[in-house]
């Protein structure tokens, strides 16, 4: 973890070129020495150690549309510049999200256990299913949800220990987002940590030790389906409610969906609403600690929360990539992508592209256009929960600033080993007494 050197005043001091990160100097040397063709950004170790930065830097400069022939999950293209990512993301006619072609992660969906979800569909089916779900975040609903979120946040913050070290990820980030999700699903409150269990199983890399194996993962996801099928059966004949299960069960477009499709859309909403917001809640505290000048400015002017929230989401980039499959041969960045090729948009790289963002490696809480970032994606698949994510972060910081001038990070984070979910397993913090 980077620590601010005494006397350092500028947020840029904590960029990936910071001399306080000798591990990054090593990574940079390796990134530039190795043959370009051998660079494989799907290596989860690069993300666990937070050393992916110089590799992306090199790719943006030397091979912005880069073919990796021997990726750990097979051959694929890496798209690393902001403008090229935008071009791919908005061209859904050529760049498909279909599950049957592999889906939306660098690693193909298991063909034996395809989870049909609208994020991994193309129009027209995508549009139909997305529109069935998007009412959950209508303006009126967001107003009502904001009240609930604030109540939950206040209850969590009112019960945090002061003057002792605790894990922010577990006590705050996971707890708050899980509660949010339980509210969206009207999920039995006492069982809400099951949502975390299912979300983590859905996204974990089963080739890594410590994570559920493929059969274990499938069993956990079937557990999720079984539980939600019970909720569906309870609500399908009841009057329509405002929760996601009820919406899916009552909307003509979705009420006849097959069980695996139901599971797929549930997992989408659980994952989409869970790790992502969780990791932004953790990230924000880490970034403010790494950039004490920004923390000072925030304290002096809490109105800066408004522009800080999208900056946190940019800086964290909770999902490092999204993947597409080419439906036809297409030219991009002077390269020819062939029909059937896997194309990976590295949001984490585009969000640090100086061609599109000024001083991109600096954490700056009052940027002029803070929402111009790739973390939610762009185009027809742009995150349907984006405003809900922002509301949660806004409330977290409003409630923190009402209570404590400072929350100190007292040790390095442990990061998730994943080239997809860019997040934190633990972050030790202390609220000064």
């Amino acid at each position, binding site marked *: 973890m980077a620590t601010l050197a005494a006397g350092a005043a500028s947020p840029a001091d904590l960029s990936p070129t910071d001399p306080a990160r000798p591990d990054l100097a090593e990574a940079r040397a390796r990134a530039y020495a190795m043959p370009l063709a051998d660079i494989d950004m799907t290596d989860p170790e690069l993300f666990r150690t937070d050393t992916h930065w110089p590799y992306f830097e090199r790719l943006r400069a030397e091979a912005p549309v880069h073919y990796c022939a021997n990726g750990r999950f097979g051959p694929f293209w890496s798209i690393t510049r902001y403008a090229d990512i*935008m071009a791919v*993301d*908005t061209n*859904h006619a050529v760049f498909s999200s279909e599950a049957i072609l592999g889906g939306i992660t660098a690693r193909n969906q298991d063909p034996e256990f395809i989870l049909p979800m609208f994020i991994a569909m193309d*129009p027209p089916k995508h*549009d139909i299913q*997305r*529109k069935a779900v*998007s009412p959950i*975040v*209508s*303006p009126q609903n*967001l107003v009502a949800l904001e009240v609930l979120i604030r109540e939950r946040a206040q209850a969590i913050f009112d019960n945090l220990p002061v003057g002792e070290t605790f894990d922010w990820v577990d006590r705050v980030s996971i707890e708050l987002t899980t509660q949010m999700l339980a509210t969206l699903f009207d999920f039995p409150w006492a069982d809400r940590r099951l949502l975390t269990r299912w979300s983590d199983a859905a996204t974990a890399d089963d080739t890594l030790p410590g994570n559920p194996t493929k059969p274990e993962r499938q069993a956990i996801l079937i557990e999720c389906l079984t539980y939600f099928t019970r909720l569906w059966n309870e609500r399908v004949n009841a009057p329509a409610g405002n929760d996601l299960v009820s919406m899916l069960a009552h909307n003509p477009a979705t009420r006849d969906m097959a069980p695996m499709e139901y599971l797929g859309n549930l997992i989408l909403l659980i994952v989409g609403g869970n790790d992502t917001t969780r990791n932004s809640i953790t990230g924000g505290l880490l970034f403010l600690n790494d950039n004490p000048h920004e923390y000072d400015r925030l304290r002096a002017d809490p109105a800066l929360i408004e522009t800080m929230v999208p900056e946190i989401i940019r800086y964290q980039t909770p999902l490092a990539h999204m993947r597409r499959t080419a439906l036809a041969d297409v030219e991009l960045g002077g390269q020819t992508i062939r029909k059937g090729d896997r194309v990976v948009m590295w949001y984490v790289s585009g969000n640090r592209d100086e061609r599109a963002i000024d001083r991109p490696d600096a954490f700056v809480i009052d940027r002029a*256009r803070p*929402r*111009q970032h790739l973390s939610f994606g*762009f*185009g*027809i698949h*742009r995150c349907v929960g*984006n*405003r809900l994510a922002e509301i949660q972060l806004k409330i977290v910081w409003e409630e923190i600033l009402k209570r404590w001038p400072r929350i100190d990070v007292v040790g390095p984070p442990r990061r998730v080993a994943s080239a997809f979910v860019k997040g934190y397993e633990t972050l030790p913090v202390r609220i000064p007494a």
Partner: protein
Amino acid sequence: MATITYIAAGGDTHSIDVADGYSVMEGAVDKRIAGIDGDCGGNCACATCHVYVDPAWIAATGVRSEGEEAMLDLAEDVQPNSRLACQIMVSAALDGLVVRLPVSQH
């Protein structure tokens, strides 16, 4: 150059001059008019610059492109006179244009 009037859902009205070649979205965002977001910076990629074109101006502002249609399809409370403001380019022909803003952008 054209004077564009933006009427927010709550009634707040702003009339500003926008230079030729800029979009109706850019004009609003530049002057920080609340109710248009333009998250994607004008790439027809986020649908957060959704506006309702005043009936008198529908002919002058033209029709939606295919990409615009795809994005608008997913926006909230879309009407026949809905447009994405980043796809309406300002010229003298639009002097006096009036657009209404939705309750929120998403």
